[in-house]
């Protein structure tokens, strides 16, 4: 492998973006690896957490953002708790994910609650969905989750899981659990009725506008 190190300026730029977003001083990391040593997900990651920090230190933005690491991170905070240099790595992972989404390096999966769209999506997912990786899974899940909240004010798990399976392509894995859960009366078939739905919608749209204008300012 060979990496072209960006000029000092670019390097500073990427590191300082992440520093600003996360409020962490990335230079504190002395690459001891304790974060990776304790990370429960490290086995599955393309690059271990300390390597992601290294990429940031060297200004290798592409590398930092393109690995599945940031999407697999479970935000468990084990790394943040044990880091000898007191870096909040989980927060840095958050920042990388947010940055990734902001920069739309990856297209988000659209979502709709209408029955017609469901069918459409279902069909589509049969065609394409099977190749999707964690990144799109996590994105899809987050996306759906928030859209559920936006729409109903609360999470509607049946809808969430159903939609997620349809969209992610892992069609049968979790849906199978459905009947068992229902048997135990675990999940609701009908979403709960939150009276403040409009208010929730307002919160979401306000934030959307705010963030858009902030992004434009930058």
């Amino acid at each position, binding site marked *: 492998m060979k990496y072209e190190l960006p000029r000092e300026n670019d390097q500073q730029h990427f590191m300082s973006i992440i520093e600003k977003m996360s409020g962490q001083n990335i230079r504190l990391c002395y690459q001891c690896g304790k974060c990776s040593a304790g990370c429960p997900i490290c*086995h599955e990651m393309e690059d271990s957490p300390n390597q992601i920090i290294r990429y940031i230190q060297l200004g290798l933005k592409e590398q930092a953002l393109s690995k599945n690491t940031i999407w697999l991170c479970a935000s468990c905070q084990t790394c943040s708790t044990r880091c000898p240099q007191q870096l909040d790595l989980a927060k840095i992972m958050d920042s990388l994910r947010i940055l990734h989404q902001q920069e739309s390096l990856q297209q988000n999966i659209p979502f709709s609650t209408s029955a017609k769209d469901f069918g459409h999506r279902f069909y589509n997912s049969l065609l394409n969905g099977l190749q999707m990786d964690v990144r799109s899974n996590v994105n899809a899940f987050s996306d759906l989750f928030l859209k559920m909240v936006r729409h109903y004010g609360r999470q509607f798990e049946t809808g969430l899981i159903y939609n997620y399976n349809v969209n992610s392509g892992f069609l049968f894995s979790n849906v199978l659990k459905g009947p068992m859960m229902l048997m135990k009366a675990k999940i609701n078939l009908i979403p709960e009725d939150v009276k403040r739905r409009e208010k929730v919608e307002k919160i979401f749209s306000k934030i959307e506008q705010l963030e858009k204008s902030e992004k434009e300012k930058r």
Partner: protein
Amino acid sequence: MARIGVFVCWCGSNIAENVDVVEVARYAATLPGVVHSVDYKYMCSDPGQKLITDAIRTQHLDGVVVAACSPRMHEVTYRRTVATVGFNPYLFEMANLREHCSWVHENKAEATIKAKNLVRMMVEKVKQNQPLYQIQIPVTKRALVIGGGIAGIQAALDVAAGGYEVILLEKDPSIGGHMAQLDETFPTLDCSQCIMTPRMVEIVQNPNITLYSYSELDALEGYIGNFTAKIRKKARSVDITKCTGCGVCQQKCPAKVPSEFDEGLSTRGAIYVPFPQAVPNKPVIDREHCIKFTKGKCGLCEKICPAGAIDYNQQDEIVEEKVGAVIVATGYDLLPKDTYAEYGYGQYPDVITSLQFERLVSASGPTNGELKRPSDGKIPQKIVFIQCVGSRDASQGRSYCSKICCMYTAKHTMLYRHKVPKGEAYVFYMDIRAGGKNYDEFVRRAIEEDKAVYIRGRVSKIYLQNGRMVVRGADTLIGGQVEIKADMVVLATAITAPKGIDKFAQKLGVGYDLHHFLSEAHPKLRPVETNSAGIYLAGACQAPKDIPEAVAQAGAAAGKVLGLFGGKNLCREPIVAKVNESTCIGCFICQKACAYGAIEMKGLKDRKGNVIKVVASVNTGKCQGCGACTATCRSNSIELEGYNDQQIYAQINAIGFTND
């Protein structure tokens, strides 16, 4: 009226080229109080110096200003010169026309004006000067060494070899410190006790050395050359003049106490000698654990002691010793392993500290040198060593490197392989710090010959799986997690300052750093001195150190003491603070400003001997002449000789514009 002489130097062309020296001399002669003013090519040459001494005599001068180079260059020269004719050297001042004027300014007219100003300021200052006399401090030529580890032992032996008396103070029942606990030592792998025990014996045999073991310093008073140490000899409960050291008592004692010497891996009695080669080889009773003292029963040792040496009624004894210098060699502690919950919290018996490992492999240790692990006595086939435990760890408040653990861990892997030839040793490290003669070669040998596997990364957790410890770490070189099932884990826990050393340092008036290691006066050029004159440092009390360094520093500290004792009296520059007792209001704000503890309280008495007023008083043995006190006193009652307010204000008052 003052009679000042001014002597303006050309320094060849060094000054004369950029400053009109003749004009400066002419100008000086016009200043009020100046009765004599000349210029000369090389003032520091013999004829130049003679110009000055002659003028002092013929002109009856009471002040001399030499306008030449920096006082840092020739102040000492001229002080000696004027003293040869009985002139008080502190009635002399220098104006710096070379470094601060001719060499830095190009415009000759401007430089000449400046030169005049500088001369005028000095003339005004010297008018305020008072004769001062060197301070002679008589020196008690005995040294106190505190701490009987290798550093303290070496320092005591070196000072004694110079022919002076030494008092060696050790808080534990025996001297030896940590080195006595070690097995073989890097970088040569010679046996620690073999090289140490002879020196310990020498301590008791040397007629110049008095050993107070099981004793502590209660107080240290006085100043350089003249300290009084109050030493508490803790009650041993054994009369060592009677005890023959037969050891029957400790064999029979029913109490069982974890042995400090074996780091808790074995037990000792309540009456005990910490280890077989102890010096002195006489037991003490640990009253906290003795059944006689805690419950009033037992008394077995008294019954069986053939020498009748047991004395339960012995009391602590306070002795006072007068000494002229103190060497502090109080050593270090090891961070307890239970600081790291993720490494098993002291729950897993087979997670041990490096010092415990030393005891486990030591021939004199609890297993007689067979490496058996604490939980079940099995020989560990796979050991994991973890470096930097508690060191270089900001989250633990310790960002420093403990310096010696890289080396002793390499040593441990070797000792392990020598005991268990088929065993596997893994080392988790962040960096290998092996700077020293033959040190890196030593580490390479551990890797290349003794097959230690070094893994670059930290360990995050140790947990049990089916009763076996799993060490989960990272190898940052391959970029992933690694897990090792281990039979034993050795933590290279951080070297820390001994608990309570801050209080102890305050007692001595010695500074300490953030981590409570004692502070040297200057990290490079005065590494064994402290800011308190007459108190020196040796060994790991100053910073983590290995044996070669501890011994070298001990020798250096002894050298300083011998230097101090070598002269007749201690001569000090008279640049010290002085209190005006009639105006001092006794607020002692100055005391807080003084970094040297030089300001003491003094009671002023009336004729009947009643104290009527408490005022500040400067201990000239301790004062270093910084003037911090002077600048703090609100009633202007404390002055720094040589830089007193009148002298500085005289210079300031003279700054006005040169009139011609």
